[in-house]
């Protein structure tokens, strides 16, 4: 980016990061994941820097982008859980590691997941989807970058689409 674009993004970050984090935390009820989403919102701002520089309301643009990310990520997460586990999303959020409490059909799903994915991929799936961890947290646990973590999640999704039919 050009120096003035850098300064623009830094200024927006300084002005609005905390506020957007408060918004995301109120909705997601998890400040770590909220910061992850907000950081991704500012990354989106970098990707669209030319448009944002010319925008009449950058603050509004950031808020709309953040809300869209929150809404879509929650929808995708619920869809993901119900598809692969055929569970109500409320039940799935309680799940975490209590596989012994699952009925036979869901235990089969869990076992299939463990056979299809590597240990790291299982860890990534469990932490990001079922435990609502942030990409930053999981990337640091696995010793990889945030973007490598994102790409691995995408590969996990593709693997699971092949193994689990659409519901």
């Amino acid at each position, binding site marked *: 980016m050009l120096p003035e674009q850098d300064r623009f993004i830094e200024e927006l970050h300084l002005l609005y990061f905390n506020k957007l*984090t*408060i918004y995301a*935390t109120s909705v997601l009820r998890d400040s770590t994941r909220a910061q*992850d989403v907000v950081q991704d919102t500012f990354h989106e701002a*970098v990707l669209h820097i030319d448009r944002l520089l010319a925008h009449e309301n950058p603050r509004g643009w950031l808020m709309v982008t953040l809300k869209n990310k929150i809404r879509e990520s929650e929808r995708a997460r619920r869809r993901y859980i119900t598809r692969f586990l055929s569970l109500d999303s409320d039940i799935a959020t309680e799940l975490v590691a209590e596989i012994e409490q699952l009925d036979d059909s869901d235990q089969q799903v869990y076992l299939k997941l463990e056979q299809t994915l590597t240990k790291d991929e299982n860890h990534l799936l469990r932490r990001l989807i079922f435990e609502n961890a942030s990409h930053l947290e999981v990337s640091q646990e696995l010793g990889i970058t945030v973007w490598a973590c994102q790409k691995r999640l995408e590969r996990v999704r593709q693997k699971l*689409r092949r193994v689990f039919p659409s519901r």
Partner: protein
Amino acid sequence: MANQKQNGKYAYLDRLSTEQLQELLRADIDSREDGDTDVIFHVLEVIEEREKACPTGILPEEGKAWAEFQEHYNTPEGEGLSLYPSQPEKDSDGTGDIAESSAPVTVKRRYTRQIRFHSRIAVALIATCFTGVIAAQAAGFDILGAIGRWTEETFQFAYGDGNPGKQDPKYAGYINAIQEALAGCGIPKELSPTWFPAGYETSKPEVLKNDLGTTVNSLFQNNSGSFFIIQITQYNTAEDLALFTFEKDKERVEEYANGQRAFYILSNLDNTTATWSDANSLLVCISGLISVEDTKAIIDSMGGY
């Protein structure tokens, strides 16, 4: 950032608790359309100030967020990528959720959405009025005990300048809607006011039911952001009604009687609240950023037609 003028305009939000403000934010995201950005950012500013004064850990240390952004997120590896896509994903076979309609929001829909959002603000404000023990008890007002039981014969009040024949014709629709909502809940429709200050608009009354009873809420708002709410509640029992006590500030409590119905007009900062109860199961509350004179005119119009 909110300028000084906007700070005055939204100062009433400062009275809400952090939990209530967070509830407003959740109401905003739950709405399928975007809310009033100025209000949202004022709410965020209030919470941020409180968080800086008494940190709860939701915000990182100063400078840490920017450093993390530069180190972990704003890297060449992330070019063209998103951790949290803004658009619905599609399956590998091209199927997937259909994206939500991006049709432009009409002015009327946007206004209705704003009214619903502000309805939550108004309800939260009224809740702040209805807590604590009222000092009026010490001043000699036995709020519930002094109010006489009403009967249907008492609902014939003059409503002075609030003659509905002089009002905007659309107000007749508002009155019908409130009366229908009341009748649908088994609440006497004569409790509906039949006069409202000029320049205000409202959407369909909101009916709320819980373990204590049923409430019909009507939120009115004008173009400059002033609003008032009319809440008509029927409690299941007199004991449920007695659960509510009232908070007042140093301003006096004014008793305003119209026929056999006596309202108590309270002031709380720049908010006017007028309440009436039959001490049995009914409670009427008119509250908002309106003058005492307009409040009295609304009171006078109750049971008009």
